[in-house]
């Protein structure tokens, strides 16, 4: 039943992207320019001002940032997905997973642009194309799985507890700092590392760097663990969404 609505999630994402592009003068160029500017800000702060010039620090930072921003953007947007579709869902029946999923699709499309920019930068920077690039699709699919799963769960729960948005905002900030975006987890004291690697985004970012920077193969066991964890989170999200499918349209009437 739910699969029937996937084309709708895609078309809605396409429509939202077109609408967003139409709102600015240089339209979809922003999807390339925005990540570049974002990366530039962090580059200026960490590489120029704070002089953190360990070897390849810029590349290290950018890989982390692009990978992280996909996750953060999708989760933040998904938390408001059902709330902003209230008007729609009071006029027509739709399975509620459509809304967080179409958010994931738009954010994934934008990530596609940012990731392409990143690959171009890596190439300009002079990093060789290594054989381990073949592992990249797997890593991307695992991150897509994680992003979708978290988006579904957050999207399912926030409408019941709107106050959670503040908690999620701050939790994401905490996660940003402990995911090793601008420091390597190997710089943390030994006894803390294993705790930091419980964070799936830390695992993803670490493995992205292995592949893109060092030409190493991912650590398949931890990547698989992230995949399984995502499936569990996603299943829980879908369960909540289906369980309360006909409750969501009446929530905001309080």
């Amino acid at each position: 039943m739910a699969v029937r609505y996937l084309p709708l999630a895609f078309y809605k994402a396409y429509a939202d992207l077109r609408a967003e592009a139409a709102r600015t003068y240089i339209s979809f160029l922003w999807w390339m320019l925005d990540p570049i500017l974002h990366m530039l800000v962090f580059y200026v702060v960490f590489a120029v001002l704070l002089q953190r010039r360990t070897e390849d620090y810029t590349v290290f930072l950018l890989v982390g940032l692009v990978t992280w921003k996909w996750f953060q953007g999708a989760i933040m947007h998904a938390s408001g997905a059902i709330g902003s579709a209230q008007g729609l869902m009071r006029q027509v029946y739709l399975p509620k997973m459509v809304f967080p999923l179409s958010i994931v699709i738009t954010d994934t499309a934008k990530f596609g642009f940012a990731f392409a920019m990143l690959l171009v930068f890596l190439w300009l920077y002079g990093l060789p194309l290594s054989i381990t690039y073949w592992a990249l699709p797997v890593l991307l699919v695992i991150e897509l799985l994680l992003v979708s799963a978290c988006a579904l769960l957050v999207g399912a729960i926030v409408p019941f507890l709107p106050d959670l948005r503040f908690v999620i905002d701050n939790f994401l900030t905490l996660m940003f700092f402990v995911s090793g975006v601008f420091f390597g987890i190997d710089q943390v004291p030994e006894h803390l590392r294993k705790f930091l690697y419980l964070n799936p985004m830390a695992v993803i970012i670490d493995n992205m760097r292995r592949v893109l920077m060092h030409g190493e193969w991912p650590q398949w066991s931890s990547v698989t663990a992230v995949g399984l964890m995502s499936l569990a989170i996603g299943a829980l999200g879908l369960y909540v969404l289906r369980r309360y499918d006909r409750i969501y349209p009446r929530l905001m009437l309080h």
Partner: protein
Amino acid sequence: MTLSHVGVRFAQRKGLFGREHCWALRDVCFDLHQGETLGVIGRNGAGKSTLLQVLAGIIGADRGELRSRARSVSMLSLQLGFIPYLSGRDNAILSGMLFGRSRRDMLGRIDQIIDFSGLRDSVDHPIKTYSAGMRARLGFAVAFEVDPDVLLIDEVLGVGDTEFRAKSAAAMRERCRSDKTIVLVSHSDTTITELCDRAVWIEAGETRMEGSPKEVVDAYQSARPGKLSPGVR
């Protein structure tokens, strides 16, 4: 479709943790037969809109039972999901898909939609450039073309400027008289008696009467002493 003793309650938040429930529908029973047009009449706040949401499967009943064999039931929602920055064509397809139609299906119907709306020249412009009347035309053309098994109509029959209002209302009346299954909510006695095969009177969330349109409307009218003229909207 059969409704037996359907009730829907809404929770009202009181203070930080307190809740208070109020029943928007208490006890609604009626049958909807295939091919008929059923009129629903009742005062403001009687629960008519909530009833349509239950019929459309948007919200579930908290008590009672709704049995349905229809594959698709939807409200005549005009301009459903329209996005101002998107072209009329894309909006029509998006809107149709929100109603449960496939993209291919909508692409096949787009020409009819454009013809009906009379917007051939501006269909590829973003609808934020449309006048309110043009948006109403497109919205009606899409909703009309979607054509579910059971169509739920809340008051509006025709929209737009005088000319299009006549055209759209005529198309709607045509459909009511055909053997489509339709639930029509209206304040207007004439609409109910003219278009419906049967009627139901809802009062304070309960079915007060079910019968022929004439009987129900008469009973409804005589239960409202001191009423001015029949409200035609």
